[in-house]
């Protein structure tokens, strides 16, 4: 039993559960980036990420993620002229 406790402590030390979950979210986001397109996948990721990490109000997460994504899209599409993944599904 003591050994099991040590294993759990080791795992919590290197990857706290919050971090493992968030890393999984990142992997999902990056995998979805091409098929779903930049706007859809980033919006879902930002909203889920903020709601998960900053647990205050869902409305705030929604507003902040939509507003910042709009800003990012405008700046990178028009100021930096970057081609963003458009997505195959939509």
């Amino acid at each position, binding site marked *: 039993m003591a050994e099991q406790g040590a294993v759990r402590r080791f795992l919590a030390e290197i990857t706290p559960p919050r971090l493992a979950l968030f890393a999984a979210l990142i992997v999902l986001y*990056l995998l979805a980036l091409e098929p779903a397109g930049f706007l859809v996948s980033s919006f879902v990721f930002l909203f889920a990420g903020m709601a998960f990490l900053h647990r205050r109000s869902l409305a705030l997460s929604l507003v902040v993620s939509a507003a910042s994504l709009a800003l990012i899209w405008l700046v*990178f599409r028009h100021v930096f002229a970057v081609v963003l993944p458009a997505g195959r599904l939509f």
Partner: protein
Amino acid sequence: MEQTALWFLMAWLDPSLLLMVAAGTFAGIYIGAIPGLSVTMAVSILISFTFKWPVDDALALIAGIYVGGVYGGARSAILLNIPGAPSAVATAFDGYPLAQRGEAGPAIGVATVMSVVGGLMGVLALALAAPVIANFALLVAPRDYLLLAMIGILLVGSLAGQSLAKGIFAGALGVTIGMVGLDPMTAEGRFTFGSLSLMGGIPYVAAMIGFFGVAEALYQLRHLDLAPVKQRVGSLLPDWRVVRKLLPLSMRTGAIGVVIGALPGTGGDIAALLAYDHAKRTVKNPSSPFGEGAYEGLVAPESANNAAVGGAYIPMLTLGIPGDAVTAVIIGALYIHGLKPGPLLMVETPHLFWFTVGSLTLANLCLLVFGLTGIRIFTKLVECPRGILIPLILVLSAVGTYAIQNNPVDIYWMLAFGLLGYFMKVYGYPVAPVILGVILGPLMDVSYRRAMISARDNPLTFLGEFLTAPISLGLTLFLIALVIGQTPLWARFRGR
């Protein structure tokens, strides 16, 4: 002479370049100040967005961000006791006690003025020293580049991290990453495991964004719950008597900053710590005891870290060897714009040098203006919770990596390096030497091969030249001293 002046004033006279520098400095202050965003992170992400721009615009923006960002960390160090950037760690020692005493406003004012003093000293050193070094750069033999690159990786590894061994490991990892792909001399595949997608090498932008962006963001998840302390700040104008009294100290620590910045690999963070130490040892009667709100302890690191910016550009522009992590990333940017950083850079594109000097000077003047204003919005923005910031950093990292060659595979590289970087950070391995290794690996490779060819493939001649050529001998001795200085042998010798 007239031509030089024109190049110098390019960023001042062209409205769009002027805007780039000003916007860069302004953005840099916030990037540096917001805990969780760093200048290295911002510049790594930005180079992939700006690669379609004219190179001058990109360099002007980066110069502004660099200057603003090194200073910006001081504000959050003073206000929140959280250094916004690694170069502001020493600033918090005395800056936060000053804020607790209710002197946050004047403290930020003094820090701003002294940052500009240090920054201008750095630019002056760059303008004076770089042409001299460039003349003499053609005398620097390939084996000297090999030595300089090794010194750079060792210096950053030993001073930035906890142990020399971990630093060497991180540097070697970077060199290995940089080696993947086709051999530059024989076009033979190395470390490609027969895979076609490894033939072109590992994209270094993906490595930079992975190590500095993703890894850093993941690492910060561990300390999500640190609540910042709120501060009320009035006027930012410094007490000019304090400024005048501390000017000599500022100049001294500025000089330390220039030298540390100019050494390959070491930048503002190390310069600031050494300058703080210098102030502590030399100032006999500080305004308050050190660590309890001494203006001396605030001025020393702030002058030094901004002076290190100009210093770091010196080896980058003259030899193509980065002075610190940010200039390593800028070298990556120059490659993307089709320029070859190295001794010929100043010969082939002479305008680039004076243009850089001009935009750095301008950025320091912008810093003076922005640094003494705009504190209200600032305190609001800096309190932006990390839970909101971290997802945004990841989106920006992904877009930045994708933008460089529209290749989704690069994003997976970024993720892999991000995860690797996270575990390295958890176990106390510094990540900056990895990036230095990635940038310097190919340079070391080519330099070694050239040195071997000029020694007619005779290892004895090759090794002998390390002792007979004066520059090589000096560098070899420095390298040996650097390694021995890290071992218990040196401690025992000193203890005796």
